[in-house]
C-alpha cells in the first residue's frame, strides 16, 4: 500500500538533491537545474496533499499549475540573465559575476 509518506519521501529526496545542486555548482545553468528540481518536489507535495487530504479536492493541483507557470517564467528570465552575463564576462560561472555594475 503506497501511502502519502512514500510520495513525501521522494519529494524530500528531490528537494535535498536540488538544494545540493543549487549550492555546490558554479555553472549558472546547473544552478537553474537544481532550482527546477526543488520546484518539482514542491509540486509532488502539493498534488500528494490534495489527493490524500481527508476531503480530497483539486486545490493542490491548481497550485501546482501555478508553480509550473512561475517555473516557466523564472527559467526564461534567468536564462536571459545568464546569456547577458556570458556576453559580458565570457563565462557562465556565477562566482565571477561579483561586480555590482557591469
Amino acid at each position, binding site marked *: 500500500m503506497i501511502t502519502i509518506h512514500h510520495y513525501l519521501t521522494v519529494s*524530500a529526496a*528531490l528537494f535535498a538533491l536540488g538544494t545540493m545542486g543549487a549550492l555546490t555548482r558554479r555553472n549558472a545553468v546547473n544552478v537553474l537545474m537544481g532550482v527546477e528540481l526543488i520546484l518539482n518536489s514542491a509540486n509532488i507535495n502539493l498534488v500528494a496533499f490534495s489527493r490524500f487530504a481527508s476531503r480530497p479536492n483539486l486545490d493542490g493541483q*491548481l497550485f501546482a499549475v501555478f508553480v509550473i507557470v512561475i517555473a516557466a*517564467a523564472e527559467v526564461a528570465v534567468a536564462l*536571459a540573465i*545568464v546569456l547577458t552575463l*556570458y556576453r559580458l564576462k565570457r563565462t557562465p560561472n556565477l562566482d565571477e559575476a561579483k561586480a555590482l555594475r557591469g
Partner: protein
Amino acid sequence: MSAEAVVFYLFAVITVGSAIVVTFARSLIYSAFALLFTFFGVAALYVMLGADFLAATQLLVYVGGILVLLLFGVMLTHKLYDLELRSEVHQFVPGLVASAGVFGVLTVHVLYKARWAVGSGKVLAPTTSGIGAEFMGRFLLPFEAASILLLVALIGAAMIVRRRKDA
C-alpha cells in the same frame, strides 16, 4: 507487493536516480539529459496520484519548454566543440552537509513525526474539467495574474538579451 507498489518504486527510483545524476554529473549535457528522466518520472508520479491534467502539463511545459530552454542555455554559454562542457563543483562538503541535513530533518522530523490527517486517497476521476471550471471560477484572478506574469516575463527576457545599439 502489490502492482501499485511495484510501479511506484520503479518510478521513484527513476526520478531520484536521475536527480542524483543531475546533481553529481561532471558534464552539463549529462545533467540536462538526466533532468529529462527526472521530469518524466515526476509526470508518472502525477499519474499515480490521479492528476492526469497535471501530468500532461508537466510533459508539455517542462520537457517541451523548460528543458529545451536549459539546453539552449548550455549550448549558448559554451563553445560547442571544445571540451569545456564541464561544471565545476565548489563547497562540496558544506553543500552535502546542508542538503543531507535538509533531507534528514524533512524525513525524520517532519514526515514521520507529524500526524497527517490522511483520507482514503481514492479519487481517480478525470481532473481536467474540474481544473478548468476552477480557473474560470474561484481562481479567475490568480489565473489572469499568472497570464500577465507570463507576458511580463516574455517581454522582460527579450529586453534583457537585446543587444543595445549604444553599447
